[in-house]
């Protein structure tokens, strides 16, 4: 079983990202489970969401403590929250940042930084980075196919909004595939 933990702030769509990643993974034929770190969601407050991937039905209901993958939607969280806590050796951490990340990940963990905010602002006109980072996640981990992600986004968003989110995700996908 592989596990993903998403760190974000309330309003950044971390829970939606977890849900859509699970939907895309399920389309790819694996069992997936997505759930939020249940809290009182306020805009700007640190939030977490989780996804599990497995080749059989998932029974475990505890939160994710030793993730294989981590997505950090907001690099300012690194100051306040130990976002890399428990990451497994060989794990992949994706951080949204336009600058070099001012923190070191544990040895053996691959750190990918991507300026998802700039992509989102350019493509969506909004600093909402969840869908962009889903594209990066697909490219970095191979847990979900881009076509499945595209379907998940198209089912969640309407018309033009779906197109733009898919475009933002594709941009990040291509950048990570190209070695971002």
């Amino acid at each position, binding site marked *: 079983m592989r596990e993903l933990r998403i760190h974000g702030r309330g309003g950044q769509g971390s829970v939606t990202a977890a849900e859509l990643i699970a*939907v895309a993974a*399920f389309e790819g034929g694996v069992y997936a489970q997505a*759930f939020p770190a*249940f809290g009182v969601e306020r805009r700007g407050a640190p939030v977490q969401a989780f996804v599990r991937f497995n080749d059989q039905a998932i029974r475990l*209901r*505890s939160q994710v403590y030793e993730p294989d993958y981590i997505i950090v939607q907001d690099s300012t969280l690194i100051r306040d929250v130990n976002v890399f806590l428990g990451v497994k050796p060989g794990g992949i951490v994706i951080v949204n940042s336009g600058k070099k990340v001012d923190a070191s990940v544990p040895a053996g963990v691959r750190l990918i930084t991507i300026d998802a905010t700039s992509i989102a602002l350019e493509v969506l006109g909004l600093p909402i980075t969840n869908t962009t980072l889903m594209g990066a996640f697909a490219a970095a981990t191979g847990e979900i196919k881009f076509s499945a992600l595209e379907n998940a986004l198209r089912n969640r968003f309407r018309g033009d909004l779906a197109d733009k989110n898919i475009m933002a995700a594709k941009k990040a996908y291509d950048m990570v595939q190209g070695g971002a």
Partner: protein
Amino acid sequence: MLEITEGSHAVAKAVKMSRPQVIAAYPITPQTHIVEALADMVADCELDAEYITVESEFSALSACLGASAAGSRTYSATTSQGLALMFEVCFNVSGMRLPVVMTIANRALGAPLSIWNDQQDSIALRDSGWLQFYAEDNQEATDLHYIAYKVAENPEVLLPAFVCFDGFILSHTYEPVDMLSQEDVDRYLPAYKPVQRLDADDPISMGMYATPEYYLEFRYEHDQAMKRARNAINKAGKEFGEMFGRDYSALVEGYRLEDADTAIIAMGSLCGTIKDAIDEMRSAGKKVGLLKIRCFRPFPAEEIRNALSHVKRVAVLDKNVSVGAKGAVAIEVRDALYGKALPVLGYVLGLGGRDVRISDIRNIVSLAESGKGDQFYGLRTEVL
């Protein structure tokens, strides 16, 4: 067909396919997504039901009471403080023998205020005369709604039912669920045929005044109906299994229990984590098994006695506490095993959303093996 969806939406779909004629509910976290989805379905004419918006949970269940008395298949959903506000109406619905089905997205009760999961809310209504089912996952949570209607409306039973599923842990989780088709549900669950109902052309009284010459007999009849529910569940669960491959005929379900030395007993979503913990412990040579209680009312005392005849100790995990006594499940399991020389150790855990991990289950089994129990597990002593 297997689809991936949020637990609340899976439950809302199951409710829709059960074709309730009247829904009355008041939104409350973490039940909200269920009733929002149902309100959408009614507004979009996907579900032909009367959706009554109300100003409180008391009114929600009161509206259901009236609608059910008039002969409608009726649905509500709530949790925690909302269920507490329904307390009085719960006893009226069950005493009037009205087969209302209500989803409980289990949540802790205040004070202190908590929106997080435990099972104190439905356990506090233990004595209210409703059937109580507890779901391990969202598959059970959906399927148990069909079973609940079938059993509740059985003329041998005529009792309301709670379908309990853990708030957030199941209600807000996306996972694959095998949804039945409307045709399947219609085959399994035909339209409700009330034995008697309020009818202006043929007037009757319901919920009338009972003098001391009659009240005791009313309560006895209620208790007898609950006892008959056992057979009705066996039958409804078996029929469901024959039709759709998932057998819910048993009120309890064992997991790797056949040769176990230590039996863990639990209800709800905790059972999934326990199963993973058991697989780990089994690989390390520990003979541990689970007895899941799916139906808490009627209480499956006989099934528990039979299932545990060979074990050396029983660890009961309660996401509730009867303050001043123990967890409710531990109390009742000990009662079921009265006269047997079998240690029953109770652990109160996971209250107010405290996460329960595989390592916690391992620790509890170790505690049970050393005879230590009847305690709150996982206390942060530094804040006491």
